């Protein structure tokens, strides 16, 4: 059957093909280049990977880190979600407000903050050392457990959000029915609540697994000589062992894609129709002892969650090089911020980050709106492909995306569709764009799916042109998702570190690279001041997004 006969309109195809071509070129082609590169010497690179002890160690550590990251995230995220959705106690609102705070910390900033707090000369470490009267620090923040520690802090948020959403959707009459039929609280939890939450829990576990698999900042900064695949890729590239880097990238990316496919499979199972007569009532904690424990617990958790942010702010006022063996930085100054006013050079990374994330996010909004429109409201050949293309960058670790772009856009060769971008300004906005696609597209899709599809027909039936329908009906319907997705993409781009470290040049160095450079120079105050500016930028983006959400939208 021809496309016309299937009712696929010419307009839809004219819209779909450029989008498909663009995504094939920027998302799929670099990955294929990587896989092809891994076979450039036949199977030699793969053999080398197989026998190289460093790579074996890296592969093993990657899985060990990912496994324990999943376990710890579940152990924190699930109880916290139950606590905050099912119980009422003093401090609940405060705890809810800060529970997702770790996700708002740019990855590199989180790692640096953890060093300030829990590193060998960190504040918490020194307090513990003094309290115990030890000669040396009671622990070192290196190796697998250090990485798992920070992963637990940042990634439990996924589990928490998934389970919380699951609990809020939960039809509480199911639990009432179980109780009415004679089931104890424990039986109801085991036989009814947990089985129904399993899709949420497993979904978030896969998400944590994927994130931990590709995590770069933590192993890079405090791996302590320990290797994981993502850092190994950069090391191979810097050593000029590109073939090996390609194999490592392929292994890492394929594992992540397998996890993504698992997640998709689970999401399709997550369709228990929950009729919503859920009376979400929180049990008010009545016993005095439980209330006291709850309040103390809330304070402790809030403190642990807020400490990294607080620490970065504190250190941003510390004089560089003055903080040596004291528990807290001894001298405070505004110089770290004042310098920015004096030296225009210091603004360069900030300008770079803002400009590059604006470009990338702008492109994301245009491309992803069209893609979401096509997926939700149009029929055309290649729809499944489009859905796949926009979800791929979600699974593939940033290091792998960066290496793909680095090996594809490294020369001008129109015959193989290559353009020289490496070493130019444009390679980083491109990387940010690719990473932002799934965030913006899925949010826009979510909004469009809530729109009654007959609205489009209604508008056309009332005589509106295609363009007017788009502008007055479709775009307003997609807007809440576009705004939310663009916010997430811009936040990720402005603090991006992992792809940047592979692709940046001195001229377009982003804030994260400057933080790393200052940190390596032991200019902790300056590094923290940049971190604070980065957090301020994130808050600004959030504020702008909130403001534009407040405009009336079609729902």
């Amino acid at each position, binding site marked *: 059957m021809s496309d016309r006969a299937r009712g696929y309109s010419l307009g839809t195809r004219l819209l779909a093909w450029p989008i498909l071509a663009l995504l094939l070129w920027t998302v799929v082609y670099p990955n294929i280049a990587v896989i092809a590169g891994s076979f450039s010497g036949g199977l030699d690179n793969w053999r080398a990977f197989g026998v190289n002890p460093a790579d074996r160690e890296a592969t093993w550590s990657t899985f060990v880190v990912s496994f324990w990251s999943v376990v710890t995230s579940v152990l924190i995220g699930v109880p916290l979600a139950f606590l905050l959705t099912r119980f009422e106690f003093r401090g609940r609102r405060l705890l809810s407000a800060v529970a997702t705070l770790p996700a708002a910390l740019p990855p590199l900033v989180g790692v640096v903050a953890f060093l300030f707090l829990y590193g060998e000369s960190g504040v918490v470490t020194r307090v513990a050392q003094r309290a115990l009267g030890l000669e040396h620090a009671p622990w070192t923040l290196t190796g697998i457990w250090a990485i798992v520690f920070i992963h637990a802090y940042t990634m439990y948020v996924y589990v928490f959000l998934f389970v919380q959403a699951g609990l809020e959707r939960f039809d509480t009459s199911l639990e*009432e029915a179980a*109780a*009415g*039929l004679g089931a104890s609280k424990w039986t109801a939890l085991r036989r009814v609540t947990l*089985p129904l939450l399993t899709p949420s829990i497993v979904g978030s576990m896969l998400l944590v697994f994927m994130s931990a698999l590709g995590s770069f900042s933590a192993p890079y900064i405090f791996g302590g000589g320990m290797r994981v695949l993502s850092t190994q890729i950069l090391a191979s590239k810097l050593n000029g062992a590109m073939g090996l880097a390609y194999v490592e990238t392929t292994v890492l990316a394929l594992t992540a894609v397998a996890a993504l496919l698992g997640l998709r499979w689970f999401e399709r199972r997550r369709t*228990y129709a929950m009729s919503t007569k859920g009376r979400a009532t929180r049990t008010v904690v009545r016993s005095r002892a439980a209330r006291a424990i709850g309040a103390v617990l809330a304070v402790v958790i809030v403190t642990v969650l807020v400490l990294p942010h607080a620490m970065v702010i504190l250190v941003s006022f510390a004089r560089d090089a003055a903080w040596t063996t004291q528990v807290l930085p001894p001298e405070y100054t505004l110089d770290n911020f004042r310098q920015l006013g004096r030296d225009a050079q210091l603004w360069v990374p900030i300008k770079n980050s803002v400009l590059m994330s604006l470009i990338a996010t702008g492109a994301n909004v245009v491309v992803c709106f069209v893609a979401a429109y096509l997926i939700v409201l149009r029929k055309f050949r290649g729809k499944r492909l489009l859905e796949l293309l926009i979800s791929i960058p979600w699974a593939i670790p940033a290091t792998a995306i960066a290496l793909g772009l680095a090996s594809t856009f490294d020369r001008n060769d129109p015959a193989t569709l290559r353009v020289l971008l490496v070493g130019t300004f444009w390679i980083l906005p491109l990387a940010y764009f690719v990473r932002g696609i799934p965030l913006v597209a899925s949010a826009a899709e979510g909004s469009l799916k809530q729109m009654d599809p007959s609205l489009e027909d209604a508008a056309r039936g009332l005589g509106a042109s295609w363009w007017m329908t788009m502008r007055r009906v479709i775009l307003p319907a997609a807007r809440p998702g576009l705004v939310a997705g663009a916010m997430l993409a811009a936040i990720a781009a402005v603090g991006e570190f992992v792809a940047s470290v592979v692709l940046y040049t001195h001229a377009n160095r982003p804030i994260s690279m400057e933080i790393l450079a200052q940190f390596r120079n032991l200019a902790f105050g300056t590094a923290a001041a940049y971190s604070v500016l980065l957090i301020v930028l994130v808050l600004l983006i959030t504020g702008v997004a909130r403001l534009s959400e407040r405009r009336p939208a079609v729902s």
Partner: protein
Amino acid sequence: MTEPPRTAGTLSLEGLTRRFGNNAGVNALTLEVGRGELLALIGASGSGKTTTLRMIAGYERPDAGRILIDGADITSLPPRKRDFGMVFQHYALFPHMSVGNNVAFGLEARGVAKAERLERANRALANVGLEAAADRAVQSLSGGEQQRVALARALVIEPRVLLLDEPLSNLDPTLRRSTREELRLTLRRLGVTAVFVTHDQEDAFAIADRVAVLQRGTLLQVGTPEELYDLPASRAVAEFIGTGALVPARRQGAEVSIAIGGVTRSVRAEGAATGEVLAVLRPDSLAFVPSDSADAWPGVVTERRFTGSLVAYHVRLAGDLDVEVHSTRRDVKESERVAVRVVREPVAVIAP
């Protein structure tokens, strides 16, 4: 089974009260449900009927009052220890379990061995006409079948009281009628003590032995469907149950005189109100009579609606008084002049 089962109990509510903020959710409700009796709680939304049911089930704690089963106080017992069966409005079937496991769940919670549990679940499913459905997924069932599974799940534990929260509200009208019949037959056959909540008078009348009418948390009247229809105790009940015109009249002894447009008719009265009262003229207690009949009220047909077995006529009498007349006559046209007369006595009277 024609005798009420051993497990069916007598339920008593004594001054049951639940407050929500300022307005009373349920206000000092006292009610008795006999062994094997089917009682309907009926009222508009916000009348407190669902809150009452949830208090009986134990999902909500009353602020005052007691709940007794066979004379034993169970007010502070948690739901799982009450041995009540409940059919939820949206059925609350466990979506991750098969039909059979849903029905067997209450037995599993009671530690019944697997073989017996399955056997009893199958028998309960057979009781609702779903013997072949045990292995099916809950999602694959139609709304009516889900309702029956929910009923089987509540009955299999041999509840002392069966509670049903708007059990028919999720069904489309055709299915609703047939399911209502089945529900009535099943409950009668099993002889369980049951309380069910509904906002639909037809459902209540079709199923219940007695009906309790609630308004803003207060029990207005409880009685058989006939009592509520023929002898409403108050204006609120007369307006809520059935249709009919409330006509100012005068009660003298056993008679009530209804004067419309200078024509006064005296009929036998029933009800406690005396003096200036309202007479409840139900559509089926009025009929068309030849215009020269004595005591007939002249009027004009303003609307005619064919319902199948009857024709419902709206008639405007003198003084712009509108009454409804249900008649088997089909030949009366709109705008036609007619004469209307009370043909069924006694007529209920209520305080104005």
